[in-house]
Structures are given as C-alpha cells and as structure tokens.
C-alpha cells in the first residue's frame, strides 16, 4: 500500500513514520505543506494518506478536496486537534475515511491506521 505522510511538524512526521513500521506499508513520500503534498500525491497516487488538516501554504481541507478529485478511492486519515470538530466533520464529508485526534499516542495511531487500511 503506497503511503504519503503530510504534516508540517518534523517530529510528528518522524513519529508517524516510526509508527507506520508496524504495518505493511510502502512510504512513497512525506510532505510538509499542502502544495508539496499535492505534488507528491499526483506523482505517486498513494492508497493511504495521513493528512494534518492545519498546515501552512494550503489549508488541509483544500488539499484534501483536490486529492479526492485526483484519486477518490485514496484512504485519507485526517489529523487534527479534537477541539476543532467542525473542521474534522467537514473533512469527513469531503471524503476523508477517518480521523485521528491530536495529541497522537502510539496506541491511538495504530488503532486508527488499522481501522482505515483494513476497512
């Protein structure tokens, strides 16, 4: 499963990479902002994306919207602080398959990823 990681924080990115080792996933790229994420997305057409919804350059929702136009069957896991429920709900309506509330713990991450890639 081709995987793309999108997060503006380097620490979170590496944490996600580390957590993803437990799964049979092929990480095709990591992006730090929406624009970069879209470029990588169009290039690799990944099956699975972890997407931070609050990012510089391009708003995560807009990024998600474009991804869904390119490859609607891609499974996008949206990550955001739980306090911003309206945005998460918007993202799910736009086509995200799941969400993960921040702060991320190894367990919550595994559970969310498991759910989304086996579904």
């Amino acid at each position: 499963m081709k995987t793309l990681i999108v997060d503006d924080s380097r620490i979170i990115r590496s944490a996600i990479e580390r957590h993803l080792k437990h799964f049979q996933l092929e990480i095709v790229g990591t992006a730090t902002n929406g624009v970069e994420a879209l470029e990588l997305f169009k290039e690799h057409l990944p099956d699975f994306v972890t997407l931070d919804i609050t990012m510089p350059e391009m708003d995560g929702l807009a990024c998600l919207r474009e991804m869904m136009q390119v490859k609607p069957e891609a499974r996008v896991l949206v990550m955001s602080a739980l306090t911003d429920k309206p945005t998460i709900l918007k993202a799910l309506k736009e086509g995200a398959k799941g969400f993960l509330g921040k702060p991320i713990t190894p367990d919550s991450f595994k559970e969310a990823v498991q759910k989304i890639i086996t579904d």
Partner: protein
Amino acid sequence: MDKSPVKGSSGVFRTQIRLLILAAILVQFLVAIFIFARAVQEKEYQNLRDQLTIQGIGFIHELDDLNLSVIHDRELSRGELTGHPLYQESTNRLLEFSEVFSIDPSLLYTMVRSRDGEHDYYFILIGDGTYSLQKDDPFYLSEEVQPYFDLAYETGEIQYPPVYTDSIGKWLTVVLPMKDADGNVYAIHEPVLRVEFVDALVWEAVWNAIQWPLAILLIGLIAISALLNRVFRPFNDIVQLFRKSRAQDDIDMSSIKATGEFEELRKSLSFYIDASRSAKRETQEILQNVQQGLFLLSSDLTIGEIQSTQTRKIFETTKLTGIHFDALLKQFVVPKLHEAIVDFLDLMFSGTIDESTLRDLNPLKEVECHLPLDQGGFVTKHLSFEFYRAQSLANDSELEYVMVTVQDVSEEVRLAEELAQRKEAEQNQMELLMDILKVEPSALNDFFADAQEASDEINVRLRGTKNDDNLHTLVNDIFRLVHSVRGHASMLGLPNIEQASLEFEESLAELRERSELNPRDFLDITFHLEEVSRHLKQLEEITDRLSRFRPQTPQQDITQSLLDTFKSLVKDTAAQLDKEASLDTSDFKAIPLSDTQRRFFREIVIQLLRNAVSHGIELPGEREVSNKSSSGSIRLSSQEISPGQWEVIIRDDGRGIQRERLLEEAQERGLELSNQDRDSDNLLKLMSTPGLSTAENVDISGRGVGMDIINQRVIEMGGSLEVFSDEGHFTEFRITLNQELSLSS
C-alpha cells in the same frame, strides 16, 4: 366505557344495507331469468318454424260456420259435431279464432286472446300433399283422416317447450267457402291438412326457464350463507379487532367467535395484538420515565413522533414532532456549531464513517443552549446530546433513523464551573495570603484606606465631570491617584493589585496620548476601576479572616496607632494643599469596635478629615482675614453618651457650609424642600440627595467626597450621621453608634 349504542346502530344500519343489496340482486336475477325465458321461448318457436314445411294452408273459420254436415255426410251430423267436446271447447276458447287467419306461419302462434285469457296456441298445419281437390269427387274424405271426434282426445296440456314430434296433430279437412261466377257459395273441400295443436302458457315457459337457475341460486345462497357464517363473519370480526386495537387498548379478545382455522388465526392475532399492546404500553412507560430526552431523527432531520416526556421538558416546548432538528438547534446554538451538527448528521446517515469514530466528533457533547420560552425570554441550559444509528428492522441497507438522547447537564456544568472557580479562588487566596503575611497589619490597613479612598475619589471625579470640562485633566488626575495606589501596592508587595493598577495606568496613559477624548472612552476607566476594586475587596476579605489568627493587639495600642494615622493624614493633606492644620484627639476615647466596624470607622473618619482639610479649612491668608489663626484646627472626640451608645464628633473651624447656595442649587434641580428641610439639621439630607451631591455640590458644600456615600457607610456600620455648621465658623459631623445593638446583632 359504554360503546354498545355505537356498535348497535352501526350493526342495524349495516344489516339494512345488506338486505337492500340482496333484494336488488334478487330482482335483477328474476328479470334476467324472465328475459332469458322469453329468449328461450322465442328460440323454440323459431326452431319449430324452421322445421315446418308448410305444404298448404287452410283456415279455420269459426267452427260453427263449417258445414261439416256436408263433409261428414256419412258419420257425422252437425249435431254430433257441436256436441263434441272439442267443438264445445273450440267455441268456448277460440272465440276470435278467425282473427288469426293468415298464411304467414309466424302469425299462427301469435298470442291469441280467448275467452279465458291469453294463451299461446299453436296451430301447426301440415299438409300431407297426397290429396288434391278432384273435380269429380268434391267431397272426398281420405281414409287416413281420422274422424273428427278423435280430436277430442288428442288435445290438451302439452309440455313446454313443445316438441314437434310429440305434439298432437290431427288431420283436418278444411272447407273453403268459395263463390263461383254466379255468386253461389260452395264449400270447397281443401286438401286434408294435419293440424297440430301446441298449447303453452307464458308462465309455464318462464317457470321452465327458471327452474334450474333457481335451483342453482338456492344452492348458491345456501352455500354463500354457510360461507358467510363460517368465513366472513370471523374474518370481519378479526378485521374489526385490528381496527379497534389501533384505536383503543382495552378490547376483549374473547368476544370474537371463530372456529377452525379462524380460531387459529384469531389466536395468533390476539397473541400479536397482546404483544404489540404490551410492547406499546412498555414503550409508553419507558418514554414517560426515562430521565433523558429520547427521540428519533429521520434522514431529512425531522423529529419523529415518539419522544420521551423529558424531551419536551428539556427543549421547553411541546411542538417537536415533524420539526426540523437543525431549525430547532439554529434557535439556540451558535451558527458555527449548527453548521457542524448538520455535517455530523449527514455523516451519521451516510454510513461511510463508522459510528464509534463519529461519536468522538459529536459537536453537541456539552453545549450551552439558549432556549426560547413560550412566554417570552429564554432559559440557558447545558445540554449533552448523543447520537446512535438506529438499524431498521425492515431494511438493513438504508439507515432510516438516528436515535438521539439528550440530557440536561446544566447542574453538572454549574457544579464543575463552581469547583473550578473555587479552586482558582483558593489558589488566588493562597497567593494573596502569602503576600499579606509579609505585610505589617497596620501598613496593610493604611493601604486599604488609601486605596479605597483613591477609588472613591476617582468615581466621584468621574461622576462630577461634565463633557465640556477638561477631560485630559481628569485623566491626569485619575492617573496620579492610580499611580500612587500602584506605588503603595508595589512597596507592600501586593502583586495582584499592582498588576491591576498597572493595567489601569496603561489604559490611562493611552487615553492621555489622545488629542481628543470622547466620554465613551471613559468606559475603559470604569472597567479598570472595577477591576482594582475587586482585587481590593478580595484582599480585604482575606485580611479580615487572617486577623482572627493574629495575636490580638491591645485595644489601647490599636486606638493609638489609629489616632497617629489620622494625625499624620491631616498634616500631610494640609501640606499638599499649602494649608496648615492639626488634629486634636485628646478627647477621643477608645470605642469597642469589631474588625469590620473598625475598618469602616477608619474609612469614614479619614474621608471626613480629608474633606475637612481640603474644603473646610481655608488657606492661611484667608484665615487671617477672618481673624483666625493661620493653622486650622480639627477636633476628633468620642464619648459614651449612654451605655453602648457612642458619639463621635469631627469638628473643624473652617469656612462652614454655605447653606444658602446649597439650597438654591437644590431648588434649581427641582428638589422639593419643606421649611423643615431648610434647617441646618437637614443639611445632610440636602448634601446626600442622589444626583445632587455631584461635583457642583462638592463646590457649594465644600466637601470632597460624596456625602451620600459617607452616610451610607455610617448606616452600614449601624450608626447615624448628622451635620451642623455655622457659615464662616465651623462644620461639625456627629456620628452616633449604637454599640450594644450592633455587637449583639
């Protein structure tokens, strides 16, 4: 419940209708049979006609006229013929027989009217064709021709439909009366014809036609009635049962009579009805008693018909069924939240995201709702919603309903908030406590008095300023007052107050920089003033509590330190105003006061002393003109006038109160004054009138702090205040304290 009349009347009505319908059907049936019979009859006649071979035709005149004697010269006499039963019958019955004279066979069986009614009387004439009229033998009678009288035995009743072969036919010689050229009448013996008599009555035809259908009908009726009894009535009863079960709960199942399969059906139905009835009852119980709001949302977000009683209480409305949930929410939550809930419910119904994931995103976990009330206004509640996908029993592919539970958690939220606030307050108090512990009690008391006074003064200045006064000066003055409070707080190490005053100062500094000041800008000042006062109050409360744990300072010492404070206050204030003044406390006796009272007392005296110095005592030059010593003198004395009754007097030898101007001003302002009010006793009333003792008053009365506030404080500590003055000579404030009363209370 009396329901029998309804049942009865509807039953009778129904029976009548049924009878009517039955009668109509019967009539129709009979008519149909009659028509059918006629058709059958017609058909038979047609058959007969077709079979007839008319080889010749004669006519039968009235039998009377037949010259049969001529014919039967051998055996028959006329007398014999007329005496013959057939003759008799013929003359009786076929009166108008001649009228059917026709060669058209169809007319032969036209209904014939005879003496005794109408008959179908058929004459079927068949010529045998073997005989023809012979010239030489005009009266020849065939051997085959039966004697006439034979006819008598051959006529009679016949069966319908007439069967040609079985019909009775007789040979008949027909005599035609003919005229010859000379006018002589001859009876011409025509070829012998065979006449078949076929006689049938109409009703017989009808009877014949209807016999079988009638039999079938009867059997059918019997069968139908049996069916009605065995099938339709139980069926109808069961249908009725269903109908009733929807309308009411207490129907008697045993009232239905049924047998066989119907009994089984009835049993099954009553089982289901009982089950659904008890389920309904249980549902009602649940809905009434469940302590949550409970209802279903359909996919168009309308609220379902079934709601728990609590739902209506929570939403403060009974009109919920069919209402759009989002429209309902729109009224009482903020728009952004409303948008989120619509998205949330869309996802809930769409089923693309699993329920447990969605549940974490429920935007209505605990929301503050402002519910409009029917009688106007609104009530604020904290509501907690939960949403569940309700899997339909009928159809598991499409989600039809989302179940919603809602709980009023206002109380929990309030308690949580209270707890948080208390924790915060405790935290603050702890910090304050630590701050206070570092400070000398007397220094703290001085600070409170100063700060309180500064805050009062600021408010008095605000109140007394008109829009066209110099607002910048006002800001500067307030700044100075705040600044001194801040310095004092900082020196004593009271960070809360220092911080609040600093913010106040910053806000003032900003205002000071503005070239134009608008009165509304001063709202910033009232706000900060409020903040500082709040902190002061907090601090005071804690100091109060703390003082209980501090070693009691002897009364004498407290009094002395208080008097020292007063003295230095008078001196300092005077110096600030380029005046000279001293305070004489030699006649002051220590008054037993509670802690709170002491602080009030301290404030009151400080304010009165300040006023005395700033407004009562004149400048040294002025005093000399009035033949007074350049240094003003203020006297503070106290005395127990009766047990528990104390009197405190503050008297200055300054310019006194300019009463006339005060009165004038009061009258200008529309204050109604009685003569009594003009007495000096009521100066205080004048000075304390709300809306009057503003800055203008301050100038007239010569008092700095609003008298109404001072008066209020005196009343609060359980005393009363009086003012006496002689213009140009003195002003005296007299405070009376009823200690027994206030201590006991």
